């Protein structure tokens, strides 16, 4: 749960949001760019979950563990759900679906960082 990782995740999520909106504006569905972006985003989130799991196994637990774990696991589902939903969407709004999912993930990682820094003490 480090700041650099959260920043990197936010950048990827932000780019993916813009790409999604670009598709909607261009009247297109989603393409390879979106899938790669979502894949990269998911990889960063899995890395983050791994780091958090290792730290928690080592005894560092945030004050509000249930909420933290909820976000940690929940955020992993967001890009996956976004991609599945967007691929099933035949209209130009597919990109907006990806954009919403990416923006959600981008916000959630900051909330995760906030929860993590409130270490139980």
């Amino acid at each position, binding site marked *: 749960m480090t700041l650099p990782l959260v920043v990197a995740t936010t950048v990827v999520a932000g780019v993916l949001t813009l790409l999604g909106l670009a598709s909607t504006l261009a009247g297109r569905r989603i*393409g390879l760019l979106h899938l790669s972006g979502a894949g990269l985003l998911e990889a960063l989130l899995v890395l983050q979950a791994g780091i958090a799991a290792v730290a928690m196994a080592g005894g560092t637990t945030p004050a509000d563990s249930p909420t933290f774990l909820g976000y940690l696991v929940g955020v992993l589902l967001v890009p996956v759900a976004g991609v599945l939903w967007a691929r099933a969407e035949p209209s130009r709004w597919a990109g907006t679906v990806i954009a919403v999912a990416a923006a959600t993930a981008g916000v959630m990682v900051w909330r995760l960082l906030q929860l993590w820094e409130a270490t139980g003490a």
Partner: protein
Amino acid sequence: MPDRSALGPAAEPAGATPGGPVRVLVLLYGIFALAAGARATVQLSTRFAEAPTAYLLSALAAAVYVVATVGLVRGGRGGRWTALVAITVELVGVLVVGTLSLVDPDAFPDETVWSGYGRGYFYVPLVLPVLGLLTLRRRGTAR
């Protein structure tokens, strides 16, 4: 234009598949139903006594989002009516709770989804019902 094709194949023309914007709305409402529901569950189950009003409001907000989501997914006349009522309640709720939380912060010791007009959620709770009502209105007159 190769950079454009990377954005995906051409979408079906507008009107061919009605309801794209509604499905985006469903996604947004679904996210908020989950977020508010999870938050209310954690708040109510772990520290209800600290701020019962705020936590019950969280639960109410979650319920309203769930009803709106279900109404939007079901569609049709009934679904639209359900969504319309839920979204109106939501708009009134976010305005009333937002105002109260600023006027009388002591009554809200902990944040709810609607505190400060949804500032904890980038004001999405304030914008969402307006978008929802506009979309429903457009869809309503289009039929």
